[in-house]
């Protein structure tokens, strides 16, 4: 990257930081209710707390996996970090610089963070040649002159493993895996320091998924990218990411180095999630017992009080029903939000 690094490589200060970030969605009221409200009546607004007071930090060059089930708020958090959705509360910054302006009409203030979306069929304009899609942003932001744009784009296509001559093609001429490569090239052509990837391999077949994961590994090595990788797939995250953060109903319940969290989860939800994942069974006649989490995800419209997980937790006690557990350190570099999380060095309870 041509841009100088904002912090020295060994600096432990976070490169990307989210501080006290929340995001609420209040659906607009139907007309009748709006009239009642205007006349001074009280209307109950069904507000979704998609993201509820999250602190998150990424060091430069780090890959953080954000894991959770549908509705846990991982996409909302990712969009806020990418600067395309303003937070309701809190601040998001890259190297100390806010990614969005405040005020009534927030705008993205930086091109240093870019996003790769899940569905490469929806995220590329079907009527633009991919070369034009790729050069639009960089030309506008003067990362490259119009005269050099084509060779610039061809270079990025090559970087993601596509034939540079494809620049003249339209999205429909590509397979799903190739389109995701185009979407990655589009993000990289903006020369970002941070890439937010929202389920970038979820819609791909396993053999194609493996090719794209290999591409991410290569790009991480070559470009010193800081990566936020959102996925519901624990094995994909373990493969690609240094650290992992587990989300449940708008909150982070556990985070730490991926290998440690997988080997020794401290939050009962992390444990349950790991137990739920089907494993490849290679023994003849093996009896497979899943240990499914009982119950279902509560509605984010009315999350349970205290610890959101208490209704499904095998070790919940009265305290969990009233008191929200803080995300607190449990081991070097690790944190968990559970009243009963085992803490290294603490005497057993």
């Amino acid at each position, binding site marked *: 990257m041509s841009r100088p690094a904002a912090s020295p490589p060994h600096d432990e200060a976070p490169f990307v930081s989210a501080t006290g970030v929340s995001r609420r969605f209040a659906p607009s009221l139907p007309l009748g209710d709006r009239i009642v409200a205007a006349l001074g009546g009280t209307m109950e607004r069904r507000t979704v707390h998609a993201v509820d007071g999250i602190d998150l930090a990424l060091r430069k060059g780090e890959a953080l996996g954000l894991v959770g*089930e549908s509705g846990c708020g991982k996409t909302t958090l990712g969009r806020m970090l990418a600067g395309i959705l303003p937070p309701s509360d809190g601040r998001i910054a890259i190297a100390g610089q806010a990614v969005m302006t405040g005020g009534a009409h927030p705008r993205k203030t930086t091109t240093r963070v870019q996003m790769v979306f899940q569905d490469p069929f929806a995220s590329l304009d079907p009527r633009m040649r991919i070369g034009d899609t790729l050069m639009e942003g960089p030309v506008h932001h003067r990362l490259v002159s119009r005269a050099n744009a084509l060779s610039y784009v061809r270079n990025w296509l090559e970087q993601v493993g596509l034939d540079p001559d494809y620049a003249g093609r339209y999205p429909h001429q590509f397979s799903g895996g190739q389109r995701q490569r185009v979407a990655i090239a589009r993000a990289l052509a903006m020369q970002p320091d941070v890439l937010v990837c929202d389920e970038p391999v979820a819609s791909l077949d396993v053999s194609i998924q493996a090719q794209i994961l290999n591409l991410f590994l290569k790009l991480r090595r070559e470009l010193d990218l800081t990566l936020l990788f959102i996925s519901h797939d624990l094995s994909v995250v373990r493969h690609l990411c240094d650290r992992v953060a587990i989300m449940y109903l708008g909150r982070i319940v556990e985070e730490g180095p991926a290998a440690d969290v997988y080997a020794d989860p401290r939050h009962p939800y992390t444990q349950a999630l790991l137990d739920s994942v*089907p494993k*490849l*069974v290679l023994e003849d006649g093996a009896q497979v017992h*899943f240990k499914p989490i009982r119950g279902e995800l509560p509605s984010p419209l009315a999350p349970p009080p205290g610890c959101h997980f208490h209704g499904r937790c095998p070790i919940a006690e009265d305290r969990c029903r009233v008191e929200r557990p803080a995300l607190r350190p449990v081991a070097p570099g690790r944190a968990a939000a559970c009243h009963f999380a085992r803490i290294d060095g603490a005497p057993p309870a």
Partner: protein
Amino acid sequence: MTTPLLEVIDLSTHFATREGVVKAVNGVSFSVGRGEILGLVGESGSGKSVTGFSLIGLIDPPGRIAGGTVKLEGRDLIGMAPAALRAIRGKRISMVFQDPSMTLNPVLTVGDQMRLALRAHQRLSGPEAQRRLIDVLSRVGIPDPARRLEAYPHQFSGGMRQRIAIAIALLHGPELVIADEPTTALDVSIQAQILTEMKSLARETGTALIWISHDLATISSMADRIAVMYAGRIVESGPTAQVLRDPRHPYTRGLLESLPATATAGTELRSIPGTTPSLLRLPPGCPFAPRCPGAQALCAAEPPETAVGARAYRCHFPLGAAA
């Protein structure tokens, strides 16, 4: 050996399109025993879903079954009169689809649509029908079934909707359930619940299952036997754990090596190069040859199916076997 419950021989299903004939299923043969769970695995476009649809006559034009037989206890279902097939479909063979919000009628209560499904094959008095519905809903883990019968599909979560779809499939105590990616749209924690319940239900009732999935791990924990599909053909089949531990076909091995769970974190995955061939223009010979690391001149000729004991494969140069 007794006749299997279902025997499929050389099944082909083709779709006529403007560009030509898509050979979605291209000479597929397999059998399912009573109470057996067969896992049908493959990537998109491999023909696994079309195979499932073909078994119970759910192929509409421009698709057609171009050849082969599907025998349920010796009786061929292909070419059977529609009325005779309707008497079997939903009663002796039923199907669970991927997306439960597409299979349930949004304007009928769950109870009403279950009663319709019941009445299609059986005359029961009101109270008898009610008892049956409550029984089958509680077997699939719907809490408070008597009250929930009056609810509409949108009032259930995705996992609960899929449970209802499974309950409808089990309504008449079928001998075979074809489940097409039934947990793909669900979260892992819900998927684990459904897998556990489906497997124990199949075991308790002696129902055979054809479990169609792209997910090797799910299949490995469910299926007694596995059939791996590629480009409309079954390229390898056999007892699940044996096939996954020691695959004969390079495509099966490629799939296994593509899984991040089987690799060391952060290392390059041994992915399969290239993409699946277009079913409009299948390469001559082995359809996997253009992506196969071990392809040789002989692979331009179609490999025959080789059966060794319980296992079968279509490869000129099978892995793990003396050449």
